[in-house]
């Protein structure tokens, strides 16, 4: 019996208090032997998600062109501040056979509202990046969870991807530098 993987992504597009949805469901039959190789199975699921997201990106861009609507998968606290669309798709995933339940694949990595639709799937932040972020926040007396939420609208630091983490490190270091500069002049 083949291993069937179903992934689904939906996004919301809104403008002028009206909204439309974009959704895609991909069903793929994979070699059942992948069950014996969990990392590879995850990789395959990631690839299917990447394909689905790419397709949704294209549809989203077409919709934006036609209607001026921008797509979003979640409400961002900064939605009003950013002209570019936020992409944080709602993912549904399931795998039959011995591996079932929702997908634990990677998020798209483009939750950064400032980056819009560009770029492919990106891995979660590395341990080194998370350690650095914790260290910077400790030094600056900031709450990392708050900064992550403020910048990216994410609920948890675990949701940060490697690109976002890198950008946040730069941002906080820059802010730290500015703070130090202001203290010198005051």
């Amino acid at each position: 019996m083949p291993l069937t993987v179903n992934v689904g992504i939906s996004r919301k597009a809104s403008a002028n208090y009206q909204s439309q949805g974009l959704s895609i469901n991909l069903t793929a039959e994979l070699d059942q032997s992948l069950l014996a190789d969990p990392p590879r199975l995850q990789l395959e699921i990631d690839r299917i998600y990447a394909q689905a997201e790419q397709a949704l990106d294209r549809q989203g861009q077409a919709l934006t062109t036609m209607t001026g609507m921008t797509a979003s998968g979640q409400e961002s606290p900064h939605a009003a501040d950013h002209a570019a669309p936020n992409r944080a798709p709602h993912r549904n995933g399931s795998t039959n056979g011995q591996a079932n339940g929702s997908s634990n694949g990677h998020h798209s990595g483009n939750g950064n509202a400032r980056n819009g639709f560009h770029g492919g799937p990106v891995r979660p932040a590395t341990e080194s990046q998370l350690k650095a972020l914790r260290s910077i926040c400790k030094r600056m007396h900031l709450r990392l969870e708050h900064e992550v939420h403020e910048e990216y609208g994410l609920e948890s630091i675990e949701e940060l991807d490697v690109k976002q983490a890198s950008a946040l490190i730069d941002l906080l270091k820059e802010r730290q530098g500015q703070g130090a500069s202001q203290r010198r002049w005051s």
Partner: protein
Amino acid sequence: MISIRKTTPTRALASKPPRQRSTDGVLAGRSSTNPSQPSCPSSSSLMPAYRAEAITGRPYISWSQVSSYQLCPKAYEFKYVLRAEPAFVPSSLVFGVAFHDAVARTSAADLAGAPRPSAEELALGVAHELRASSVPLRLGKGESLESLDALASRMLVAYLASPESHVQGTSICIEDVARGNVDQSIPPVEARVDHVYQRQDGSLVVRDIKTTRSKWSADKVSESAPQLRLYAMLLDRELEGLGRVESLEFLTVTKAAKPVVQLHQLPARNAGNDGGDGHDGLIDQLQQVWAGIEAGVFPARPGWPCRSCPFNDRCPAAIGGGAA
């Protein structure tokens, strides 16, 4: 077969996305456990990951394993298959690991925009590691713990003073573990990566730190390149979407009275002369080693490595002090 069902646009509105962190264990810190270990296999046709776990207790192979097998399959068997207790641990190994930790602390401080630890502070860490080993430490000729402390101090001063200790980019991984598949016929490969950083142009650089007896020649750099090319292969997959590994670097620090810090750079892919995959026939090499391990082929390869082999007291083929 892939079938696509698409509905667009629809009125189906998205709820808050249940985004989760990856659980496949790639790119975790060295101290963390990897959750990707497969459970007990039920099929008679065991997959490479299961085979590896059945043979070595680890569902992967690493560059250390590969080079250990290539150096002496018998020593590999003692260490990874029989999991024998080593009679001693060479001081060079403990020293190297401790030096790596010191360098990683420096890189982590740079990434966090914090002041670097001083050479004295870092040297204290090395001294602690040299004395913390639970397995007896085998010192080299003319070595003492005090001489190693002094050596660590000199090397760290040289490292901290060298411009090469500052990477020209943003650090992404420092002492992280990457694990992934490079070929279906071999188990997943695990890489312990010293340093990965991203340049301003978006390309990635993999850097490996080596403590060496003498300066590296161009031949030595080429000889060591496959390790980093393998890491580049893995990282290209694991960091897909962030950038591609374009450069490899060996940063060598000599264990000398006047330590020399050198940076050796090479491209991530070897253009043209390797059969087309750009990776020096790495997959072939891994396949051959794995085939030997899987088939239980562990001949002794007596030679100069016997002197520092921690299993030579029970190896019948060992030169100079083998088992009776």
